[in-house]
């Protein structure tokens, strides 16, 4: 068996270190080594989007990266979107619009939409739908999710203006 590796990286602003086998995916490292279970592991082959995290601000599938590849990286998971026990405006918009039912896909959708709004603070409905296309939700039918994201963007624009 290959030797386990020691890796160090920054997760949600905190320096973390841990041991992993080369074959350990980033999502398993987050959940099992770092005890950050907010990131969900769904299909394990890059289709569902539940495991999406932000790597240097950009959404990536954490099931399609090995933890060893993330050495030195700066990651944001769903736990990093707001202080512990609190929700940010995007998360509140999801709550207000019932943009989740079982909630399994929600961490991946929140991280994906966080990146969308950082990149494009005033997205159209079409922009949101396009950005959402890589995240599968089996409950909501997506409409409430699109509404929540648009509402959050409007709220941010209003506060900025």
């Amino acid at each position: 068996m290959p030797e386990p590796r020691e890796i160090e990286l920054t997760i949600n602003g905190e320096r973390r270190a841990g041991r992993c086998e080369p074959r350990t995916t980033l999502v398993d490292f987050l959940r099992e080594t770092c005890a950050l279970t907010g990131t969900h592991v769904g299909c394990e082959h890059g289709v569902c989007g539940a495991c999406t995290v932000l790597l240097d601000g950009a959404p990536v599938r954490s099931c399609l990266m090995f933890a060893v590849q993330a050495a030195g990286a700066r990651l944001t998971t769903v736990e990093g979107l707001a202080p512990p026990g609190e929700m940010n405006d995007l998360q509140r918009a999801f709550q207000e619009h019932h943009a989740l039912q079982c909630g399994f896909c929600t961490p991946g959708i929140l991280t994906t939409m966080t990146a969308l709004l950082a990149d494009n603070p005033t997205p159209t409905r079409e922009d949101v739908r396009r950005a959402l296309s890589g995240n599968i939700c089996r409950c909501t039918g997506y409409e409430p999710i699109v509404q929540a994201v648009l509402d959050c963007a409007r709220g941010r624009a209003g506060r900025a203006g």
Partner: protein
Amino acid sequence: MKPAPFDHVAPATLEEALALLVEHGENAKVLAGGQSLVPVMALRLATPAWLIDLNRIASLAGIRQLDTGELAIGALTRHAAVERSELVARANPLLASAMPWVAHTAIRNRGTVGGSLVHADPAAELPAVCLACDATLVAQSVRGRRAIAAAAFFRGMFETALGADELLVEIRFPAWPDGRRHGFIEIARRHGDFAICGIAATVERDRAGRVGDARVVAFGVVDRPVRLAAVERALAGTDGGEDALRSAAGAAADGLTPRADHHASAEYRSELLPVLARRALAQALTPRRR
């Protein structure tokens, strides 16, 4: 599922990577963006003993224009970088317009141009663009460097002309002539999925407005991207008007035996070919650029 155990090595230079490829041979897989390889490993369709990870080799990524006007893209360049590149938008508008069709944002943030080409999925966008543009794929090994024409690179489903000891290091697109126009379209069950059928097209006109060089490439249909020679011939010399275009596109399925899979039957693909060829050519030939 979880990938089978393997050992991971991330060389800092191309020379080290090439030496590792010789050392480990068939027991190794090359890891670029991992967006196709890691699923294949998770499904245990591939169980390499070694992964040679290219991600530390910074010289393999980048987009530049050469003095010749060629667009050169390093094999490790991520799809997202190509999609956002103003240089690509100027120097190869067909490639630029194909990028948003490649999977989803999260995949494009990791996936690489070289990885997609070497994976050689017959339904992928980038091999079709390379074929339509007569791109050159530059391979390197400890034996040296060689240039492979796109038409010779794709050998079949997931098969390329690359030798076991070779890495794809760069893709070169010939200069884009003034006045060349393009079209790109595909049909998939969901946006971002691999295409059931797609068309990449470029068209040039002469001074009289007649169609000159036309390239029409279908992907997702047979085991590799394929030029639709009958359509290209039928279009050449015409006025490029609606009738000419419809008539030429009607030949799109000539000589092809489309594959059938769980996404679509061969008959459906045969029906899509002329429709999508006509739409892609209409994009290319409409008077105003989109």
